[in-house]
């Protein structure tokens, strides 16, 4: 029984179906690949255990059939044995190349130091539970597809979107007071209509020349202030001066400093001049260009005992000492609040009522705001309508594929054990709260550290003569150990990699828009793997040659000279292996 089974294992009756199965799978795989991309096919087929098992079965078949025909007498059998043993070695070698090789891409720049972090295939998912335990997994993803793993650290990996944007929507149903309003802005002249949500989480939305605001008024006074015309009130925009003497920080309002000097420790600070919009005139004298607080500056004098210094302190630049070296341990910071937007549309929530204040450079209006009420803020012909008001809004965050022309980010959708769904944005960490327990999860690039660093000296793009087409890319690199010593200069270009400590460094790609940058392929493959594939390859070709042409050559050597051409009828018959199969 066993002998029969072993004979079957080494028989052509097994070999042909296995060859046919492999060919059919490969045909299907290449068409599948043109639809889903090579990463999916590599993971699902070529690197899968079942495909490995099929190749292993082929290797077993080859091995048993070769051994069962021992001793290998005559050129045909020797060739047969060489070719089939060579194929086993080749299959083993090729599998080892795919599974044991380490490979990644290294980005190097001429304006940056040596890099040793290689970007490896796949992404990294890190999960830290509430005990501080960290687990890591390599995640293989393709557009709209999680290849592997499907489950990790209690999370189900549901979906992956390569180019997504986060959308925020609101719905009624929150437990707390949390107003959200939706405004619709429309302009007939510009033929534009769009809507915008405002909520405490997004209370100011900048529209460029104007802004939309949502404010909460705790009491009547606050409401009146928020609805007041800003041109009517004199705001104190002169700001504060922060003085640091040694370790001590003191903040003084400029308005106070105008009235009286400040004393900090034993230092007296005296305000000499204030320029709201500082300029130097033709004679290099400080003046103010306007009364708007665009570029405020101060002149102060400080006195300690009989030592006096004079400083110019700027809101938008470093302070300047008038004179030589400062003897005092002083630091200045002049803080001026940014000027309010000239144009705004403000929605104020007070006592479960909505109010608005609309300001443009020409007009100001305010009053209660009702649903579907249309307000003209005075920004060209724009009209603003209150389309929605949710007093207890709940935020609903969603991920959508980025619309054409919008650059999104990759994101991974996960589901926790209790069914809570969440998107993890690539390159960011996020808190996953699911009922009583919570965990941190981060989804980002998978990197590998090299035992040495590579820097880019120069990236040379050689063009074909009189043309913009590229003839060759060359990266002139230096390799250094991680202490930044033992530097070596190398050049790599297409088909001409360099080897360093068993690592192969090759030119991989470039960025046509930035020639200070080059991408190198860094790869390591155990030497025995290379030796295995090459020797398997050599054996196979040699074996096929001997099997097909060995008998003829031998016959010709033995034949008498007058028989120059071999008659057709003496065509070498296939080896009578079939008898052993029966």
């Amino acid at each position, binding site marked *: 029984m066993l002998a029969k089974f072993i004979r079957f294992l080494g028989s*052509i*009756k097994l*070999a*042909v179906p296995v*060859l*046919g199965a*492999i*060919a059919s799978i*490969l045909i299907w*795989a*290449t*068409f599948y*690949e*043109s639809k889903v991309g*090579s990463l999916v*096919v*590599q993971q699902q087929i070529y690197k899968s255990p079942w495909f490995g098992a099929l190749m292993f079965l082929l290797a077993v078949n080859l091995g048993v059939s070769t051994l069962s025909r021992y001793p290998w007498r005559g050129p045909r059998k020797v060739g047969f044995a060489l070719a089939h043993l060579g194929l086993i070695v080749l299959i083993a*070698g*090729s599998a080892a*190349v*795919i599974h044991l*090789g380490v*490979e990644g891409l290294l980005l190097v720049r001429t304006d940056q130091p040596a890099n040793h972090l290689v970007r490896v295939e796949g992404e990294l998912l890190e999960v830290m539970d509430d005990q501080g335990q960290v687990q890591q997994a390599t995640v293989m993803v393709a557009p709209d597809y999680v290849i592997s793993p499907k489950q990790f650290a209690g999370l189900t990996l549901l979906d992956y979107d390569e180019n997504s944007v986060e959308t925020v929507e609101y719905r009624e149903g929150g437990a707390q007071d949390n107003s959200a309003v939706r405004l619709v802005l429309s302009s007939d002249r510009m033929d534009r209509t769009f809507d915008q949500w405002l909520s405490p989480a997004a209370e100011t939305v900048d529209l460029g020349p104007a802004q939309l605001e949502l404010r909460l008024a705790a009491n009547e006074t606050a409401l009146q202030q928020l609805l007041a015309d800003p041109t009517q009130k004199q705001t104190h925009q002169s700001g504060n001066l922060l003085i640091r003497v040694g370790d001590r920080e003191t903040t003084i309002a400029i308005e106070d400093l105008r009235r009286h000097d400040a004393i900090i420790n034993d230092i007296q600070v005296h305000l000499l001049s204030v320029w709201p919009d500082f300029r130097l005139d033709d004679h290099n004298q400080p003046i103010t260009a306007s009364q708007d607080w665009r570029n405020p500056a101060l002149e102060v004098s400080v006195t300690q005992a009989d030592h006096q210094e004079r400083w110019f302190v700027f809101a938008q630049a470093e302070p300047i000492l008038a004179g030589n070296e400062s003897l005092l341990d002083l630091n200045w910071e002049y803080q001026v609040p940014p000027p309010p937007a000239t144009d705004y549309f403000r929605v104020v929530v007070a006592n479960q009522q909505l109010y608005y204040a609309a300001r443009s450079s020409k007009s100001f209006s305010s009053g209660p705001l009702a649903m579907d009420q249309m307000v003209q803020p005075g920004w060209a012909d724009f009209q603003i309508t209150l389309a929605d008001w949710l007093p207890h809004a709940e935020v609903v965050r969603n991920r959508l594929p980025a619309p*054409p022309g919008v650059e999104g980010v990759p994101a991974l959708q996960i589901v926790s054990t209790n069914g809570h769904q969440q998107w993890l944005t690539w390159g960011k960490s996020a808190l996953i709260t699911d009922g009583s327990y919570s965990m941190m999860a981060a989804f980002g690039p998978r990197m590998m550290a090299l035992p040495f660093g590579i820097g880019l000296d120069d990236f040379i793009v050689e*063009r*074909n*003569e*009189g*043309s913009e*087409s*590229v*003839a060759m890319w060359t990266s002139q690199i230096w390799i250094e150990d991680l202490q930044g010593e033992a530097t070596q200069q190398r050049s790599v*270009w*297409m*088909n001409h*990699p360099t080897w360093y400590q068993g690592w*192969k460094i*090759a030119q991989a790609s470039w960025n046509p828009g930035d020639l200070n940058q080059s991408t190198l*392929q860094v*790869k390591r*493959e155990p030497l025995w793997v*290379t030796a295995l*594939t*090459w020797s398997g*390859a050599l054996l*196979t*070709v040699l074996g*096929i040659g001997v099997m*097909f042409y060995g008998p003829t050559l031998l016959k010709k050597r033995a034949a008498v000279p007058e028989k120059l*051409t*071999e008659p*057709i009828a003496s*065509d070498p*018959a*296939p*080896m009578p*292996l*079939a*008898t052993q*199969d029966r």
Partner: protein
Amino acid sequence: MNQLKFLWGLCLACALMVTPLSQWQPTTQTAVDTLAVQLDGRKKPLDTVARETVATIHGSGQYQLTSGEVLDAPQTYWSLWLNSRDWNDEPFILVNYRPLKTQLGLPLEQKYFSFSTLINSELGGILQKAHTQQLQEQPLTRDEREAFTLEDRLNLMLDTVGSQTLPLVPYPSDIKGAWVGIAEAQQLYPPEIAARIQTEFERLNQQYQENGDDLGRLQDTTAMLQKSLADLSPEIYPDSATLQREVFFNYFHPFGKAWQLYAIAFLTLLTSQLIPTLNLYWSGMGLFLGGILVQIFGFILRMQIAGRPPVTNMYESVVWVGFGIAALAFCFELQTRARSYLLAAAPLAVVCLLLADSLPAVLDPSIEPLVPVLQDNFWLSIHVPTITLSYASFALAMGLGHLALVQYWRQPQGGSTATILSRLNTRVIQVGILLLTAGIILGGIWAHFSWGRFWGWDPKETWALIALLCYLAPVHGRLAGWLGQFGMNVASVLAFNAVLMAWYGVNFVLGTGLHSYGFGTGGSELLIASIVGLDTFFVLATILRHRSRHDASVPVPDVQTVDA
């Protein structure tokens, strides 16, 4: 006697090659053809520029004017370049994709259109949409790709007609420096020298406008201009032998001559089979060898011109496979005198060379600089020719398979001819298997250096392996006694589809993978699919016929005993 007949055939082939018969006529290479131009990354004679430009825009080597007069490629190019006709209204631009013509509202039966017709059509809108798609990295439809091809033709037309910037003026010092047009000569040379060149060119232009399309009359004036241009930078300007070699290659058109010789040899050999008394076999062999020699000569010239191995793109691989089929068949025929190899090989070689000759829009024959990944002459000259030679072997096996199947069709029980053909077929398949295995492995070693891995399941690699498996399975099936001689012939025909896929389909049907530098614009999928379909239908019909007769007749002894 046989040797004499063989020599006679060979001499006949040589005579046919040099005999000035209509389009075979090699004209003299004058300065009109050899004026050097630096274009698309290399220096080449104006004759090559003319042929490439006319082939790209018009899809053919000659143009019939609306007046009925026929211009060859150089005449057409000079007329475009020196703007001697109303090229705005000449229906010169090829539009052969019917759905695009429908979209543009052009008459479907018309093949060529004028610049003004196309510019005033809806093409602008289609192109704008396609460019937006491209910018957003969206996949392009076939219609959009065809619109881009048409845009390229229109752009080339714009660049050519009345061009002042054709780079004829050599760079003074750097061998790779960019050349400039005659009108821009002062960018590289002092004004007085530039003015002299411009005067000489103006004289040439005037003479052309006066003499019309008779380029022969411009010989002296062009020679003077060429000498002045060469004297500007003698180190940089290509020597006249190099330029003349390329012009000679263009005129001599060795690959075109080769298929004609193969065709004549085929007819001769067929006659010798049908009328054995005429005894034309050795003359046919001589003619066939003539074809092979012309093709070798063509490869040598092309390698000298391009400075690289003979197989680097789809066009060259088709020509090379044609050569491989012919050369392998000739070797086998010499060895076996089976009188069948050449009959199977000649039509296949003719088809390959004819396809390469007549589809310049799909199989672009122009010599262009290699992409960086192919810049390795050692591996390029080992791996690619080996792989394509294996394709040639399988093509030859497919041809022999067809001959055998025709025999089986005539005599479903098989006969001595069918048996002989089947044996010949097996030998060719063996060569193919050896070459393909070696080719795949050599590719793996190159990939180890170039891409860092021996094997990576790239579609081109995978399909080469599939093709190999498609031949290994029947070869082993025959050993198991599952396939007889008839089955092997069927397999040699059907398995060739895997070779077609590995060779052509991966590039044009799948269109993915690292071997993308061999990709072209594609096309002819439908034609190829229908030929493959018809052929498969023929094979199926033969199988049915063979089985019905086979079952009716006495049981045939086991195949194994026949072979053993």
